[in-house]
């Protein structure tokens, strides 16, 4: 266990934080409070006011590495569509009835397997500054779902905390959701950008979650992310401050030595965090649309994870054959239980009914049942 080495007061160094090379602001968002706050936090950076983001997006999309190029720039604009959407999950596998808030798009981290490389039409790191609309959409959505416990979060189309030193969104979100106790709000991150979180009073319905991987995979496949020890130390600090935490082992990657290396991270995690403070742990094995493969090949020529054996799943995505997935999950669940996580709710992300039954012994009938299973902590708060 090497966590103590990261416990110093300057645990989160400024150099670890993301700063874009340039900020672009659309004219219609220049006077919004969030824009002004971002500009205060980025006062040292060049800013350009633009009329139409499509020209800028078009220019970046021409480049040799639009994904990499987009990560260098920040766009502040308006969300013209809806802020709240059901998580798209994947067809023909079991979902978890999660809802996503599309406040910010894209992510400065650069994970080789990231679906966003293919999924988003806009490669720029984009902040939607029209918060008034955001709160209205959330009010409408939550009012409609009264009488039901639900899970909602911001970490699907970007990292929830990677821009938090710029936007300070975590403060607003946690304050907003603290008054809405039928929703379990999750911030999902790979970063250690927790300064704002640590200054907040923890409500019972906020969950701060970390995506974890083995040390080797984090180092080789998750470019620009803090190492696993740092992530666990951040989780420990947040948990000690009174927040519930969660962990996502996703994607679990098969490679020589995977079993021991994932078990090591699980042991560290359980030593670091009181299992009672863990709201849930999700598991998902590496999967991606076939078209992402060539993007990964070009952007990460050194990676080998895409050269394992994959089959085309029921949703058309490439995934490990079921016997291999079962083996991965079986061993990881075993490690979790052995390390003290017997009572922590575990769920699968985008897996089939028979995998749930085989590994977790849960005969799930569908996403509503998964939602019920994972919102149980609300009753305890």
């Amino acid at each position, binding site marked *: 266990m090497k966590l103590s080495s990261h416990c110093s007061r300057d645990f989160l160094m400024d150099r670890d934080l993301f700063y874009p090379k340039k900020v672009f602001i659309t004219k219609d968002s220049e006077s919004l409070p969030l824009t002004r706050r971002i500009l205060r936090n980025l006062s040292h950076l060049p800013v350009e006011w633009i009329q139409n983001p499509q020209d800028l997006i078009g220019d970046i999309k021409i*480049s040799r590495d*639009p994904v990499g190029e987009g990560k260098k720039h920040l766009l502040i604009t308006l969300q013209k569509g809806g802020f709240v959407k059901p998580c798209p999950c994947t067809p023909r596998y079991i979902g978890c009835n999660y809802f996503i808030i599309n406040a910010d798009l894209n992510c400065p981290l650069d994970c080789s397997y990231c679906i966003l490389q293919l999924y988003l039409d806009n490669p720029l790191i984009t902040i939607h500054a029209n918060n008034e609309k955001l709160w209205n959409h959330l009010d409408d959505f939550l009012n409609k779902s009264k009488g039901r416990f639900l899970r909602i979060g911001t970490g699907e189309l970007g990292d929830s905390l990677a821009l938090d030193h710029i936007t300070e969104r975590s403060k607003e979100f946690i304050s907003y959701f603290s008054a809405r106790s039928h929703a379990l709000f999750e911030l999902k991150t790979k970063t250690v950008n927790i300064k704002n979180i640590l200054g907040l009073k923890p409500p019972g319905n906020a969950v701060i979650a970390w995506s974890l991987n083995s040390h080797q995979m984090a180092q080789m496949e998750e470019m620009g992310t803090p190492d696993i020890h740092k992530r666990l130390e951040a989780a420990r600090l947040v948990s000690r401050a009174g927040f519930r935490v969660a962990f996502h082992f996703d994607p679990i990657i098969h490679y020589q030595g995977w079993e021991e290396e994932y078990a090591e991270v699980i042991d560290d995690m359980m030593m670091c965090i009181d299992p009672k403070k863990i709201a849930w742990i999700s598991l998902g094995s590496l999967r991606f649309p076939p078209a992402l493969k060539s993007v990964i090949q070009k952007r990460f020529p050194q990676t080998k994870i895409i*050269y394992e*054996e994959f089959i085309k799943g029921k949703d058309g995505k490439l995934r490990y*054959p079921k016997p291999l997935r079962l083996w991965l999950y079986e061993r990881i669940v075993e490690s979790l239980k052995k390390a003290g996580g017997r009572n922590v709710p575990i769920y699968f992300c985008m897996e089939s009914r*028979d995998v749930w039954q085989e590994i977790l012994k849960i005969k799930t009938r569908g996403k509503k049942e998964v939602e019920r299973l994972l919102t149980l902590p609300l009753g305890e708060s």
Partner: protein
Amino acid sequence: MNLRQISLDVIDLKDERFRFSYHFDLDRLLLSVKEIGLVNPPVVINRESRFILVTGWKRFFTCLELSLTPLPVFILEQDDDFKAFLFSLYENLTHRDFDLLEKAEILRLLKGFIKDEKQLVKDYLPLLGIPATLPYLDLYVKISQLESRWKKVIYEKKMSLASVELLTEFDVLERELLLPLILPLSQNKQKQILDDLIQISRKEEISLKKILATQEIQPVLKSEKLTPLQKAEKIHILLRKERYPSLSAWKESFDASLKRACLSKEVTVESSSFFENGEFSVSFSLRDKEEFSKRLAKLEKLISDEALISLFKRLPDG
């Protein structure tokens, strides 16, 4: 443009500064020129007392074949090579589609004229029906630099862009080794074999030369009994096994179990694709009530067949 009659030998064929078509079939044009003569004369330009073809290479070679001299040509009065090239590009664009190799040559030539790559991409890739991005420009320029032997194969075998893109990942010497493997195969298998070779090479960190030097592949390559197509097909299968060892082993194990179960020809058992949804299907054919009864009796008997039951295990052997 002035129309003139010039002798065939005063055209400098070595100067290909405006040429982007190298592969064509002259048969139909030969027939047409023989029947009705040359309707559309080629366009030439005068440079340093020489005539250079701007457009009409196919027409020129047809006339050469027929020794049609003097040749009627239009003389283009244009000092700027780029504008002359655009004349050729747009003249062709109005009446035909370009093939993959022509597009590659056009972009190579345009790159010589236009220094601002992004502008080139924005202005000309959509014109050629290519997505307007720099990686596509890079790919087409790479294609234009392939060896002429390969260009001939691409043209004759109508290789897909996806396969040609994979081909550009290999160096000149490697492409030489690939020629006998790719040449006899269908489009789909061409892509699979190239894809498998790249992936095996990257995963195992070994060169193409080493992959092809293995003791499984060498005897196939050296065989005197096998035809080129048989060799390519066999190597295709060997590479699939190398790339997907577990899946191939599971499939073989499943097939072997089925064989051991000695099912009659009329009864078939199939698994879901790579065992993904854990289901198996049994189907049988019949012509009348008597056959129906026989099949059911056979199936009833099979329930106690260990070999068959072993197929339904969760984890396939292998």
